[in-house]
């Protein structure tokens, strides 16, 4: 487990765990019940997170200097 794995794991905690605390209708977010908005938020965040991982992942070629050291 490195930092990228941990980052990518957050939507799992958000959708599978956090939902227990988000299970309510109010407040409505853009007209959508809170719990549905919570899931939608994590879908969008998942995309942002994977994009971030893609940038930092040495496997994709453009190696960030700090990641090279901690990549082990």
């Amino acid at each position, binding site marked *: 487990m490195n930092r990228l*794995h941990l980052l*990518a794991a957050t*939507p*799992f905690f958000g*959708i*599978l*765990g956090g*939902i*227990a605390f988000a*299970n*309510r*209708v109010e407040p*409505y977010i*853009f*007209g*959508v*019940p809170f*719990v*549905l908005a919570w*899931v*939608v938020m*994590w*879908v*969008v965040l*998942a*995309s942002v*997170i*994977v*994009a971030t*991982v*893609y940038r930092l*992942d040495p*496997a*994709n070629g453009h190696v960030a200097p700090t990641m090279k050291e901690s990549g082990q």
Partner: protein
Amino acid sequence: MSALIMIAAVTMLALVLGSRARQGHDMNLEQWAVGGRSFGTVFVFLLMAGEIYTTFTFLGGSGFAYGKGAAAYYILGYGTLAYIMSYWMLPPIWRYAKAQKIVSQPQFFARKYDSPVLGVMVAMVGATALIPYLVLQFKGLGIIVSMASYGVISPTVAVWIGAVVVTVYVAISGVRGSAWNAMVKDVLILIVVLVLGIYLPIHYYGNLGDMFRAIDVAKPGFLTFQSKGTSLLWFQSTTLIAALGFFMWPHTFGSVFTAKDDRIFRRNAIVLPLYQLVLLFVFFVGFAAVLKVPGLSGTSIDLALFRLSQQTFDPWFVGVIGAAGVLTALVPASMIVTTASTLLANDLYRGAINRNASDAKVAKVARLMVPLIVLLAVFFTLKGGTTIVAILLVGYNIVTQLFPAAVCSLMPNSRATRQGAVCGVAAGVAVAAITTLLHLTFTQILPFLPDSFKDLNVGFAALVVNIFVFAVVSAITQPRFSARASI
């Protein structure tokens, strides 16, 4: 009548497109199955996103939101988690498959564990899980055709018509042949879902917020997870099971092999979660129907989208919706039939019965399998009894059992053995099959657990048994040298 004419015209067009795409392509098995490993980002994307736009989401997703409320949110959750996992899971699968010239999922397992028995087993598991997936597409076709005929064509006759169209479609087009139709289908359904999902709430309620408030007043608790039934625990276990099983479907696993390079998967994993957000509009349609076409219950909840559409629009536009719906059933159904028949012919027949069968013989067996698979699916469709979402969940409970063996095979220092993998998959599928056939709940299998565990997805129990057996048998059957080394 105009709705039916519209649907018939689009179906004919799809058949023509399918047959034209085949001209000029004379392909061997590897080219036919994996497109010569030449597909770029866009095409792999379309193959991987395939599940987002099938009858399952179009009718099943809207129907589930209509009938079960918050429970439908799981459909948005599991794909997202699966796409995140795909970032790390798919590249090593692709690299191994390329190095070993692998074209099918059973081959992958057989080669990784050096076990033809496991390969045959994976083929059987895959083909079995695909049947419910096909059943739900037929169910969708039946609903669309009978609804669009405004009752003239009975659902039974409509299912048979659908089955015939799928068989003809498979006969005249290959996997590549459906590429064009897949594009047309995705664009058409995207437009229809956006139009319905935006227009219906505004038309009937003024805006989205007022729609949800009205539902919350009429049915308190409907928009959140209940304490019983489709509870939080149900959501969590179902989302997890489906996320783990997502890439274990034979056709999805197979689409991995079509890619040109392994970076495609990492890039797609960024966009695919967003592509899923279209599901939100599918939910809106289902929710809009809650107060406007009340009274649908049981398996009838799958009709919600069409009932509301008929009540709202002119027949010609119902025809457009129906045409989009027919394509979302037809294209995936043909892919499922092709995959299942190839699994049975190439991996079961050649893998277990006639090892020296030639490619021509395998192709002939595959063609023979097509009508058998279709008939089996029609039988289960007409038998009826469950909703579209419930049908797919059965498939997921079965196919997810391949996940532990798949993941362990990718680990660099895996202690997993072929005996462990075979026994684990067998145990998991057995538990999944028995619980499904006997309609058992979690607490009936493990009666000592408190009542709140009742809503845990039974596939979860099967997966736990699977992992346990896999680990124990692997531990017992460690090769000698490593046993000595560990002492």
